[in-house]
């Protein structure tokens, strides 16, 4: 069994621990041995996006120190992986040593579905879900990491799944971190669009790889379409 280091984003740690548990379950199912560094906190994405670069630098260095000896680091959130891979080197620019360390860690961080398909070379995870499934392409995962085919392939391979095309699948869900509370009315209108497309698609569930989008979409669904749900890909693949 190979050790795989878990990078559990703060939102999963604090609000959605079941997504973390599902990630552990999926990795174990695939014969990996997930390990967890309890000193990890937050990757710093909220600070970067709000303009608190100096704060974010501290977060980045903390992250690098914790993870830099791991061979493979797996995270159930595309946007956090994007932060480590693409924003850390930018953030630390000017300090060559730290940039090197950032790039080195960055080359070993993977979003969950990316790890399964690209690193493990698998097309499927043994899982079952009876129903119609639509997929939301999270922005940072799609445009930052260029990952979209991998999760979609895994979803289609789940037994019993009927994959349903979603109109505007690659349009932002309106979360944007603090954007969602600083410009709440605009954010609501955007997420309404997303959930309308989901409802109209007649899919049973909407799968995403990002806990931010998940919280946003489910927040709106729960209020306006109780019974309809977005599901994290880890939970779909773990069957929990």
């Amino acid at each position, binding site marked *: 069994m190979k050790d795989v280091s878990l990078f559990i984003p703060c939102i999963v740690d*604090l609000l959605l621990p079941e997504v973390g548990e599902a990630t*552990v379950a999926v990795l174990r199912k695939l014969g990996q041995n997930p390990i967890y560094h309890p000193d990890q906190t937050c990757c710093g994405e909220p600070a*970067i996006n709000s303009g608190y670069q100096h704060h974010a630098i501290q977060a980045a260095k*903390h992250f690098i120190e914790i993870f830099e000896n791991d061979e493979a680091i797996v995270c159930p959130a595309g946007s956090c992986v994007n932060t480590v891979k693409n924003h850390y080197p930018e953030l630390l620019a000017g300090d060559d040593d730290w940039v090197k360390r950032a790039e080195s860690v960055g080359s070993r961080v993977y979003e969950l579905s990316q790890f399964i398909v690209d690193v493990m070379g698998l097309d499927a995870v043994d899982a079952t879900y009876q129903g119609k499934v639509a997929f939301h392409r999270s922005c940072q995962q799609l*445009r930052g990491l260029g990952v979209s085919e991998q999760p979609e392939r895994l979803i289609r391979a789940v037994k019993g799944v009927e994959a349903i095309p979603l109109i505007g699948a690659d349009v932002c869900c309106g979360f*944007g971190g603090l954007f969602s509370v600083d*410009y709440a009315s605009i954010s609501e209108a*955007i997420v309404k669009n997303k959930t309308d497309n989901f409802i109209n698609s007649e899919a049973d569930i909407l799968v995403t790889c990002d806990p931010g989008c998940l919280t946003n979409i489910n927040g709106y669904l729960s209020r306006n379409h109780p019974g309809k749900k977005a599901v994290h890909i880890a939970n779909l693949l773990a069957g929990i």
Partner: protein
Amino acid sequence: MDIKTEQFVQVAEEELKNERTRLFLSLLPPAVSQRRQAAMSTFSDPKAAMSYCASVRGAAVDNLPDLLEEFEKNATANGAKVIWARDAAEANEFVVQKAREKGVSYVTKGKSMVTEELGLNPVLEQNGIEAFETDLGEYIAQQLKRPPFHIVGPAINVPPEEIRDLFMDIGILEKATADPVELGLAARIYLRDKFHHLKMGITGINMAIADTGSIINVENEGNIRFTKAAPQTQISIMSIEKVIPSIKDAMFQVRLLCRSCTGQKISSYVTIDNGPKKNDEIDGPEELYIVIVDNGRSAKYHDLLAREALRCFRCGACLNICPVYTTVGGYPYGWAYSGPMGQVLNPMLLGQERTQDLYRASTLCGACKEVCPTGVNHPKIFRYYRSKDVDGDTEFGGKPRPLMESIIYKFWLQGVTNSWSWKLGARLARPLLNNAIKNGWLRKKIKPLDNWLQARDLPLFPKKTFRDRWKDLRDRS
């Protein structure tokens, strides 16, 4: 043009309730985006075409000082007169003075973003010179006294019935009709007359060619062509970043501009002027003035990231794809440039203090960057402007953040580098937040949470975090 960038939130709230805006936004931007995509796919390698265009724009922006001098030299040799304007006041002053000198009572205008930026029309009016916008959409927007809703279709959100009433009011429509063709014809007949005996025409410039001194306009209605061909005096105005090295670059740029803008391979008219009428020529303007406007650009030119905004050639592709623009439309941005294009340009030109909402009201989804044929990295520039607020930057006029936010980030920093305080913080915050989620009175005290809960739910924070659960999880393996 009045600058209303500070009213972003207020106007956005109004527009969110405007049925007409919502309907329009649900139809047109996606349709134009699709056309753009179809047109781009006529390139054998669309990605390569985009990155080539981006590199042409990038190199031109990096060489602006030299290119501008070369352009001035060659345009002057062609017989044009080049005028440098440091700011809007200087540019407007020049136009007014020329109009006075020539005894002009009215001018025709070709649609131009830069004259919106300069606020030229009101200045002309104050000086007793009537300005006729001759682009149909721009004419309607002007008559309604509204800012452009969309860069390509300034009045595209105005229903035909409203245009009918407007045209009846100003007396250019004989029989009341809301037929768009009839409305277009009425405006055409009325405006066509203005080109006869025209003394002065004013246009913008899409591209200025350094090595030939020529200027290029790209349009679909032909009114710019008239405005350049009919008058005795032609004044064409450009901001400094419109200059590019050669006609070859220009012709390539046109391919990307038209595809990104309207989904056309080329627009109906692309006109190239090499100076005013020559002695042996029978028509064309007798004088051509080319006004090159700085208006705050060169002051920020040394900033390599902000400078990227100068690559923009105003195709509008980023508007049509932006989740925020396609939700609130063009009015909230409050100035000549709207959508992601305006969100990168306006803070540079107006300072950050009154444009903070522009670069903050973005989800950073990156769709703008993805479609931009000139290589503007909007999200990166937004984050950069945001950091200037926090750092108290004085050059761009960064606007301080709310005290509460800075305090939260202080605590966040404490926790993020020390997992013990992180855990402690989580333990303390959980009951408070969970109570607030359930209790309306307490919730009102925590504004971000209250805003979220306006139309969305939030699950309660579970008692055991992932970290707490790990021990069990590990032992279960």
